[in-house]
């Protein structure tokens, strides 16, 4: 005989023992039975059941074990918030069992129990509960320190919560933008009334209801309530401008009525996050029934009045056999009637309005009797408690409204400080009959529509607040936060110790920090704290309500994760030819094609081509372009001749190197600026900033052309030979010297641009081709250059080549603090210019002569290639520099580096100590210049 995971013997599935005959308002479709398992045991439910109602119908009483003390828990509120019925469904943790509809074939398990729900070993905690008061861990596990990790592992075993698996299916989530005129949060009587009249006024309305059907409390009402429900529902479904979302929730209201809605129940979509810019928001969440604090109030069998009404009327479940009821309001009274109709023996009704009280609930593993205030004990398996309400004001708080405590009604209500676009209606604002609630909803709906520009109705007066006894705690101590296992005794102790404000007591005991987000706990916590510190609830107020209003999955928040990728027109060619991809923020580029050292050698000896399309390109036109260039670059640009190209460096106003590139003059008033690929957007913004905010009088137009051109650099001693086969532009050194730009036809493509620049230090031409012809020109170069040994080279080979030539890479050989002077660019900085960005800081650089300088370095042992970022030290650990770039040079057959060294070491010939990551220290020599290969640049000027 095997035991299932709930510890009971397995056997044939039992017929539901607590199911009632059909109820007038039930949500069940009795023609559709559903099969499911609970802790490995087979059960049947009915379509329309929630997980909790199906299990309750089958006679299950204990659904979970609490967090700290592992006390058995059952249904208490029968709503989304019910802390006792959180279960694992398949690979989905923390499913709210009293909200989630049963689906055929569901595998449901209890969470956080071992070895089984029934015989949970950690329930032993209850024996030592008196020692494990809230915050007990602050007072212990202090010594010995080394054991804290072990204690922590033990504490982690008790962590509540379901299991998320590494192999969980990711699901599908998406998002939607909406611009409704009016969003109504809550589909009870007032919410439905508001949606109806807002729609009648002409507004586009979104009506959002957390449960699977509209109606709120009308659903478990009597015949009159059900009739009102049918009428309202029909009218709403007929209204063309009302979008009804059920099983959905308004999760937050942000600045300017930016409203988030989580929509569930769509076919093919797990959850959809709707982001709505509403013109008006109507908040109609109703009231949440508040638990009563007394000893044993968390026993399975102790339920709230609305829980009983839901179970009986919506799900045809008999909640017990013999009941005691403590009622202080009409809902509790109605629960008594429902119980009697359901055949439950109501052994005793206590009227909280007349001061009748109970003392404690008694039982082990479930309720068996109730002790009244006068000492009498009544045997029962169901205790129904209806002692008060909590107003869920969170959405209003998010809109800046502060709730006000009404001591006559014993609950909070909205204050008068809401923005005009946020309105409240229904039970949240006051009390009344169904007609009065619907009527108030109507009036608020019209006012909301007026706020959105439809009609001119004004907001009505709030509903009156009816008196209600202030019942928070019986004479005994009980649970205040059921998810966190925090009792009223814990709150008293904490307050006595000095954690006596709402915020401190919450943080110390963790009350209100559980999965119900404080909706069931906050008011009782404040009330008990008020009692403990002899203040009033009004004085203490509530703690801050933080979004989201309801829990949202990471999936819904993320949606379809869009991470756009950019690549050049030649990327498919690169992939097909074995390129290893380099991810450079949004761009995917070829890093190398298998052997970067060989690629680099081929450039030095023959000709190579590289795809440099991501290079930033900006078209600059107008009579004042030289003024702009002078302003943003550190060097001089007034005399740049047509057809010439110049290298420039841009700095920030603090003198820090920001970007570099070449700019060429194509015509009298037409220039092309290039930037680094990662700096393209920032430089464009920078230019616009100067033109719009500093010099609006300058006539310059800036147009980004980065993606307009595919860019190919043809480099190596045979590059002229190759390129001359594809163009009739005169490439002779006299006609097209170094640092010049020409336009013309390349490989049959018109309007190409070529400039002779020298990042790699070889004779080279950078061709900018209209992008749609990029691949054509690329393949043509390779085809026509086969006999010349033309081959592609990637970013890695380019890095090797430029390092051999000592060309710095902004962002690698400079960082967020490097000035142009530190980077060895002083010759470029023309301090005698008019104002430019970087002046005056660059002029004051001489005040800091001891800044580390950028130099070329070569390890004495040429076989050692120090890792980039290796530190340069003096003595044991005084850091005097670091290696910023480092490669094996195929041209020299030895390692070459670039890096920073302290000013007093930065002269040619000095020896420095480099610490490799292994800890080994090697010597390196500072070179006369950062350029290791062909320092005179003969190859460049060929």
């Amino acid at each position, binding site marked *: 005989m095997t035991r299932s995971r709930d510890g009971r013997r397995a056997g044939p599935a039992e017929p539901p023992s607590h199911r009632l005959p059909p109820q007038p308002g039930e949500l069940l479709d009795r023609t559709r039975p559903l099969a499911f398992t609970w802790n490995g045991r087979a059960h049947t439910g009915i379509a329309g059941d929630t997980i909790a109602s199906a299990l309750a119908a089958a006679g299950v009483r204990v659904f979970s074990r609490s967090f700290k003390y592992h006390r058995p828990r059952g249904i208490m509120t029968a709503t989304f918030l019910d802390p006792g019925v959180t279960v694992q469904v398949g690979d989905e*943790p*923390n499913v709210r069992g009293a909200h989630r509809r049963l689906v055929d074939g569901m595998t449901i398990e209890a969470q956080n129990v071992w070895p089984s729900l029934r015989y949970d070993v950690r329930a032993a905690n209850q024996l030592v509960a008196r020692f494990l008061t809230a915050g007990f861990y602050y007072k212990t596990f202090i010594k010995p320190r080394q054991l804290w990790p072990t204690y922590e592992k033990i504490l982690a075993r008790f962590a509540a919560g379901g299991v998320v698996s590494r192999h*969980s299916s990711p699901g599908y989530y998406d998002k939607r933008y909406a611009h409704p005129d009016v969003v109504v949060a809550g589909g009870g009587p007032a919410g439905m009334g508001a949606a109806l009249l807002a729609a009648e006024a002409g507004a586009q309305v979104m009506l959002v209801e957390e449960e699977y059907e509209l109606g709120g409390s009308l659903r478990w009402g009597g015949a009159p309530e059900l009739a009102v429900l049918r009428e309202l529902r029909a009218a709403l479904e007929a209204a063309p401008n009302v979008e009804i979302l059920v099983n959905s929730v308004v999760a937050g209201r942000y600045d300017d009525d930016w409203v988030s809605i989580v929509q569930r129940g769509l076919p093919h979509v797990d959850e959809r996050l709707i982001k709505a810019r509403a013109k008006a928001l109507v908040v109609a969440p109703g009231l949440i029934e508040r638990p009563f604090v007394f000893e044993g109030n968390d026993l399975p069998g102790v339920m709230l009045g609305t829980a009983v009404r839901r179970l009986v009327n919506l799900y045809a479940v008999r909640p017990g056999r013999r009941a005691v009821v403590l009622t202080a309001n009409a809902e509790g009274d109605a629960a008594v009637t429902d119980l009697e109709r359901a055949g439950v023996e109501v052994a005793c009704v206590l009227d909280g309005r007349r001061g009748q009280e109970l003392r404690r609930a008694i039982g082990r593993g479930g309720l068996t009797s109730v002790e009244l205030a006068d000492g009498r004990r009544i045997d029962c398996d169901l205790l129904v408690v209806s002692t008060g309400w909590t107003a869920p004001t969170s959405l209003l708080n998010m809109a800046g409204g502060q709730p006000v405590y009404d001591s006559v009604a014993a609950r909070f209500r909205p204050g008068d400080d809401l923005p005009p676009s946020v309105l409240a209606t229904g039970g949240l604002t006051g009390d009344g009959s169904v007609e009065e609630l619907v009527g108030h909803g109507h009036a608020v709906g019209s006012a909301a529509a007026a706020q959105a520009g439809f009609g001119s109705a004004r907001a009505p007066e709030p509903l009156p607040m009816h008196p209600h006894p202030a019942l928070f705690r019986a004479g005994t101590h009980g649970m205040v936060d059921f998810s966190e296992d925090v009792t009223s005794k814990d709150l008293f102790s904490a307050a006595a110790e000095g954690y006596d*404000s709402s915020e401190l007591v919450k943080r110390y005991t963790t009350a209100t920090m559980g999965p119900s987000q404080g909706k069931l706990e906050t008011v009782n916590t404040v009330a008990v704290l008020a009692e403990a510190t002899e203040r009033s609830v009004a004085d203490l107020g509530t703690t801050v309500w933080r979004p989201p209003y309801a829990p949202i*999955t*990471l*999936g819904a928040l993320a*949606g379809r994760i869009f991470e756009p990728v950019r690549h050049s027109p030649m990327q498919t060619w690169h992939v097909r030819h074995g390129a290893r991809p380099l991810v450079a923020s949004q761009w995917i580029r070829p890093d190398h094609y298998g052997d970067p050292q060989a690629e680099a050698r081929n450039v030095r000896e023959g000709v190579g081509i590289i795809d440099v399309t991501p290079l930033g390109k900006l078209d600059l036109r107008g009579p004042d372009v030289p003024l702009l260039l002078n302003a943003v670059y550190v060097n001089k640009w007034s005399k740049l001749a047509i057809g010439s190209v110049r290298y420039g460096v841009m700095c920030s106003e603090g003198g820090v190197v920001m970007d570099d590139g070449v700019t060429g003059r194509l015509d009298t008033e037409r220039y092309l600026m290039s930037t680094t690929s990662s700096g393209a957007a920032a430089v464009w913004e920078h230019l616009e900033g100067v033109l719009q905010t500093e010099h609006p009088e300058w006539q310059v137009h800036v147009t980004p052309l980065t993606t307009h051109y595919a860019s190919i650099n043809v480099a190596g001693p045979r590059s002229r030979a190759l390129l001359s086969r594809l163009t009739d532009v005169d490439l002779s050194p006299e006609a097209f010297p170094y640092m010049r730009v020409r336009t013309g036809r390349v490989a049959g493509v018109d309007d190409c641009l070529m400039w002779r620049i020298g990042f790699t230090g070889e004779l080279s031409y950078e061709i900018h081709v209209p992008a749609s012809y990029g691949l054509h020109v690329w393949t043509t170069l390779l085809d026509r250059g086969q006999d010349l040994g033309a081959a592609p080279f990637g970013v890695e080979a380019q890095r090797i080549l430029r390092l051999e030539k000592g060309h710095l890479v902004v962002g690698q050989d400079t960082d967020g603090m490097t000035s142009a002077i530190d980077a060895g660019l002083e010759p470029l900085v023309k301090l005698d210019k008019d104002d430019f960005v970087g002046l005056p800081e660059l002029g004051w650089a001489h005040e800091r002569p001891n800044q580390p300088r950028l130099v070329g370095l070569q390890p004495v042992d040429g076989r050692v290639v120090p890792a980039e970022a290796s530190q340069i030290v003096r003595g044991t650990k005084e850091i005097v520099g670091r290696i910023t770039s480092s490669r094996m040079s195929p041209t020299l057959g030895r390692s070459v580096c670039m890096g920073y060294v302290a000013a007093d070491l930065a002269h040619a010939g000095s020896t420095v100590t480099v610490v490799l990551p292994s800890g080994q220290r090697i010597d390196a020599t500072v070179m006369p210049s950062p350029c290791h290969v062909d320092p005179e640049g003969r190859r460049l000027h060929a």
Partner: protein
Amino acid sequence: MARARYSALGLLGHGLSQRRWSRVWRDHDLEPSYDVVIIGAGVHGLATAYYLAANHGITNVAVLDSSYLGGGGSGRNTAIVRSNYLTPEGVRFYDRSVKLYENLAAELNFNVMFSQHGHLTLAHDDGSLRTMRWRAEVNKLEGIDSEIIGRDEIQRLVPFMDVSAEARYPILGALYHPPGGTIRHDAVNWGYARAADALGVQIHQNTEVLGIDVQDGRVRGVRTNRGDVAAPVVVNCTAGWSSLVAALAGVRLPISTHPLQAAVTEPVKVFLNTVVVSGTLHVYVSQTARGELVFGASTDPYPSYSMRGSLEFTEELAGHILELMPSIARVRVLRQWAGLCDMTPDFSPIMGITPVEGFMLDVGWGTYGFKAGPVAGETMAELVATGKTPEMIASFDLARFAEGRLVGEKGAAAVGH
């Protein structure tokens, strides 16, 4: 005044006898004068007060806070402790803090729950990897345990991480810092408060400083909503509002205040044992022993004093977290909040004297304030007690901005955690 010590035995005793524990800190009337007034009862202010009393015997100290103690940044941060910084000064400074944190529970007799599970900073491109290497090398030279690890090791430490090459931003490596971890921030605040109170320091909650009295270039005292207080030394420890408080003394700070948001999920079974940070994706995540995932990202990209959370923060955060750990899509966010970060131009704090004699600063803490609480308290106490700026904080002086001597920490605070 006899103060019961916390211990397992004490827990047993109190549990058996049902005796009440003594109050953690007392309420006081505001005296007309103190030797030292500290504005801000967060971890910095409370630690400064504690060390003034414990290390220097200066107990005539008042710590004033406009709200409840530990309610500012100290109560809103995600409690990450580490010392894997970029500059040698930074490393030495934060390492001192880590050492103090390691012994703090014993010193304060309050379990601060410092879990040194390890801290991982992921690199998704070679620029980041280079910066991680830079930090590792500087750390090692200073004797701090930090190293670059590869994908296999990362997968072993974090089984839920997507280390595949198919990820949108594939992981290239990470900076692994075993002594880093998380701590219970409220416990640190309460521990310092309780210990300082036991030594005679007065903590005044709900006491707002409305003005700072400066005459002839020196501070004379403060004006509060509960009365005026004379003091020759006033220390500004009000992270999040430090510009506003400094302005009361006529001191302008190079600070821009930005919200920093965070979010927490419902609990799930513990599956993550290290703190994971990604600079490229601008997110970080850790999991508490209770099973909640705690997330954060970078500061809001515009200055604000609002502590309301935004939807776009959680959207972006969730997207990036799922890029790192795709299988946790069903876990639900329970709440989000924000604190305020005082950002300086060089991502380093501003500590020490000001042109107003007696008015001192412990500000500019950006996104790295909580981890520095103990060392900041220790050094500020030394400055106040001796009148000399300790070597360890000499490079964090206010004068450095006018003198162009910025500290180079930007590389270490990519996401700032």
